[in-house]
């Protein structure tokens, strides 16, 4: 299954699009007309179809099987949502056409905002962030603006060591000094550890809850109180919100800002790495600082900072236009389909599935934090592989040969050789059981010293292990024709 690159099969004179030839006219390009050839090969439509259909078959996907990537939430993507997002009234409207011609779009955004606020128990939402990390930026900027509005300056952001890499990256991007908080033995953060670091220089804590070990932080409320007492803000990373929708509200727990990954919790498709969408819900204290564009409660859209009214202090703009409308439609379709009851059931089923895996695998793999209930994902470490010569990476690659996508590996960093498994609510019991049986079989193989099954894996994938070092050392990032062709072209 070697599929050539389009640069190897296409020609610059070939096209798969018939374009009408206009009548002669006077060009207004001035002296700017292109003289440099582009060297962009084309393919006809049948060739294009075949090339990309064939390429697609070299991908794993949630539609093909269980995709247990912890923290990534690979759940079912309903096709209804794709259909809705393609309605001309959503897909074929321009962000800058008169607002009077898009009342339905504003209605949808307002409806989505209502659901997000109701689920999180928060006051306001900034819809425009383009992805989770962008949402973090939005939330932290709102915090920075709120602090500035009080006439304060604070320089430190506290981040538990189990946090997603985007947390410290975001804080650093805003010029904050990042201070790490160690987790306890049981994988959670203690209020004492937080208090130790709190000071008048601390702007915020960024806490993921449920955390990246798949545990609900039991002291979250106390931590929030302590943080607030210190005049700081509580940023909640919402990447794992899917575990608690309909079960607990971040707003009740003291969160001031939290981004919501629509592509995780509300199932907008990941598309091989995006697009995402990361609306940020804000507490009453932070609501005034939401960036433009934002919707007022009366449904009017504030597009520019100078349009802001009394008590509105937008910290700026994060992106052109209104954000990821296409994702809003999908997420709202998902929410309406589930409803309050279905959303709660989704959280419960996801948690149930993770704990079932944990229970069924605890005797053959090492559960990192066995004493607390797992939430929607369960963390293992490589101690059960000790002495086998098999690493987490090897174990993961062996899963590929069994027809599975591996779990998240080596994250979080709090345990050695982490394996973070998130089954989601989309798997049936037979599917979970088959997955458990497969993992048990692999664990048995590892125990019995069948090392080759792991170190040689994958054998049944479109490619065997790929040399990442070579790629990083001498990166080849664009296609360059082989030398003879170059000569011929010269």
């Amino acid at each position, binding site marked *: 299954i070697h599929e050539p690159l389009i*640069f190897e099969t296409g020609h610059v004179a*070939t096209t798969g699009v018939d*374009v009408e030839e206009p*009548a002669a006219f006077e060009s207004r390009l*001035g002296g700017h*007309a*292109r003289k440099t050839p582009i060297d*962009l*090969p084309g393919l006809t439509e049948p060739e294009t179809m075949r090339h990309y259909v064939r*390429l*697609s078959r*070299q*991908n794993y996907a949630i539609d093909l099987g269980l995709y247990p990537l912890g923290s990534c939430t690979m759940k079912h993507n309903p096709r209804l949502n*794709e259909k809705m997002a393609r309605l*001309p*009234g959503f897909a*074929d409207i321009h962000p*800058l056409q008169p607002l009077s*011609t*898009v009342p*339905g*779009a504003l209605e949808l955004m307002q409806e989505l905002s209502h659901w997000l606020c109701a689920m999180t128990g928060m006051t306001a939402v900034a819809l425009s962030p383009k*992805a989770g990390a962008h949402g973090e930026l939005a939330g932290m900027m709102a915090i920075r603006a709120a602090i500035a509005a009080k006439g304060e300056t604070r320089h430190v952001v506290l981040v538990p060591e189990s946090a997603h*890499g985007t947390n410290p990256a975001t804080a*650093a991007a805003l010029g904050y000094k990042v201070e790490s908080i160690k987790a306890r033995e049981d994988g959670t953060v203690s209020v004492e550890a937080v208090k130790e670091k709190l000071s008048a220089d601390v702007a915020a804590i960024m806490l993921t809850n449920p955390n990246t070990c798949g545990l*609900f932080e*039991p002291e979250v409320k106390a931590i929030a109180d302590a943080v607030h007492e210190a005049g700081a803000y509580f940023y909640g990373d919402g990447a794992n919100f899917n575990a608690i929708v309909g*079960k*607990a509200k971040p707003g009740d*727990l003291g969160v001031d800002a939290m981004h919501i990954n629509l592509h995780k919790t509300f199932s907008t*498709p*990941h*598309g*091989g*790495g*995006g*697009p995402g*969408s990361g609306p940020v819900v804000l507490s009453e204290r932070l609501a005034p600082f939401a960036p433009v564009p934002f919707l007022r409660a009366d449904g009017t859209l504030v597009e520019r900072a100078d349009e802001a009214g009394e008590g509105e202090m937008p910290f*700026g703009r994060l992106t*052109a*236009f209104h954000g990821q409308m*296409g994702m809003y439609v999908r997420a709202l379709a998902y929410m309406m389909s589930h409803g309050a*009851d279905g959303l709660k059931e*989704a959280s*419960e089923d996801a948690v*149930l599935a993770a*704990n079932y895996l944990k229970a069924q695998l605890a005797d053959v793999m090492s559960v990192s934090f066995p004493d607390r209930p797992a939430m929607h994902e369960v963390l293992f470490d490589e101690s059960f592989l000790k002495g086998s010569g098999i690493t987490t990476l090897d174990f993961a690659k062996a899963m*590929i040969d069994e027809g599975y996508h591996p779990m998240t590996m080596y994250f979080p960093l709090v345990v050695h050789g982490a394996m973070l498994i998130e089954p989601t609510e989309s798997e049936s*019991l037979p599917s979970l059981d088959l997955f458990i049986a497969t993992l048990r079989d692999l664990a048995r193989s590892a125990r019995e010293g069948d090392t080759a099954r792991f170190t040689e894996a994958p054998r049944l994938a*479109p*490619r*065997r*292990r*790929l040399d*990442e070092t070579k*790629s990083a050392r001498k*990166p*080849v*990032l*664009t296609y360059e024709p082989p030398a003879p062709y170059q000569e011929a072209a010269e």
Partner: protein
Amino acid sequence: MRYHPLTADDRALMLRSIGVDTVDDLFTDVPAGHLVEGLLDLPKGRSEISVERALSRMAGRNRAAGAGPFFVGAGAYRHHVPASVDHLIQRSEFLTSYTPYQAEISQGTLQVLFEFQTQVARLTGMEVANASMYDGSTATAEAVMMASRLTRRTRAVVSGGLHPQYRDVIDTVATGIEVAALPADPTNAEDIAAAIDDTVACVVVQTPTFYGHLVDLAPIAEAAHAAGALLVAVFTEAVALGAIEPPGALGADIAVGEGQSIGNALNFGGPYVGLFATKKKHVRQMPGRLSGETVDADGKRGYVLTLSTREQHIRRDKATSNICTNSGLCALAFTIHMTLLGEKGLSRLAHLNHARACATADALARVPGVSVLNDTFFNEFTIRVPGEAERVVERLAEWNILGGVPVSRLDPSAPGDLIVVAATEMTTEEDIAEYAEVLGGLK
């Protein structure tokens, strides 16, 4: 619930296996009193029919671009997307896969991204490109921050021809960078070179500008380089690069832009796809994901995510950017559409766009009281209308004509009588005639 495979029996069996009685026994870590009794203020689940009805009703309240004459651009463009593009991006294997962390079973996505990077590099005339950003505006802000890292300077000069919302995004996001924005420039009269000195990290210039003018980047690049600064070239209309000289050929150090025009729908502003290209020597300071060619254990060619040591999931607070997600599916749409076009198709498409815009400009220029500000343009230009532009646009909409974007909507400091007008291959002669007639008849 139609999406949940577990049955009541399954759940009971699983609870037994776990050793608890109820599912709430798994939520014991939630602080006392904070376990909620469901979402009481939200409605119950609905059938597919019902959801479809509700959302179709909302969609029906919006005036779709295809429902009449349409001349709105200013950073997002209505182009024709071949049916095969939308079909292919909906393939399960593309749509429902994750970031290609496990390269062996993600070669589809990785090869597509490699093709994308190559296409973007060639289109912009640059050496390398990343695997996409959120959109053009965030890509531009990232370019400014990258230029600052590369030059270790903290001032950015921004052309008055840059899309006002792009400028706002730089202002907001580029922490620690002083942004020197030149005045809005509806007439293409600015002297950017004069604003550059040796404190400047980069100069940010858009061409075609927000107002549609074509800018000669070469002298600006020269001035920037002479001062040790970088030229960040911005474009919001990727189709234009089929007709005009690319930034790479004119000395740009970083080329960024909006790729929505190729393969992606208007979507009320998102999701779009940011293009980001630069020189090879800067690659380690470039934000965003990269797909790189390598070989597998059998020596077969393959692709992996590479240079991830720049990224947040490895580098955490030392990352080049906090960006994690890219616009994979939009990049896929871009790549497929671009593959269908090829150089020949793209050139023809650009030519047709230009033709339609020329016809539109000529027709509007003939309307009494209306003048076209541009000497040069690609598929977009600015007109001056008698009276308030925002009101004119509203009046046109009442006649079912979406006539363009009032400049003052985005930039309150700009004159109030300017409208940015775009035409594409979707614009018909009837559309143009109708626009001119109605505009001429407005009182």
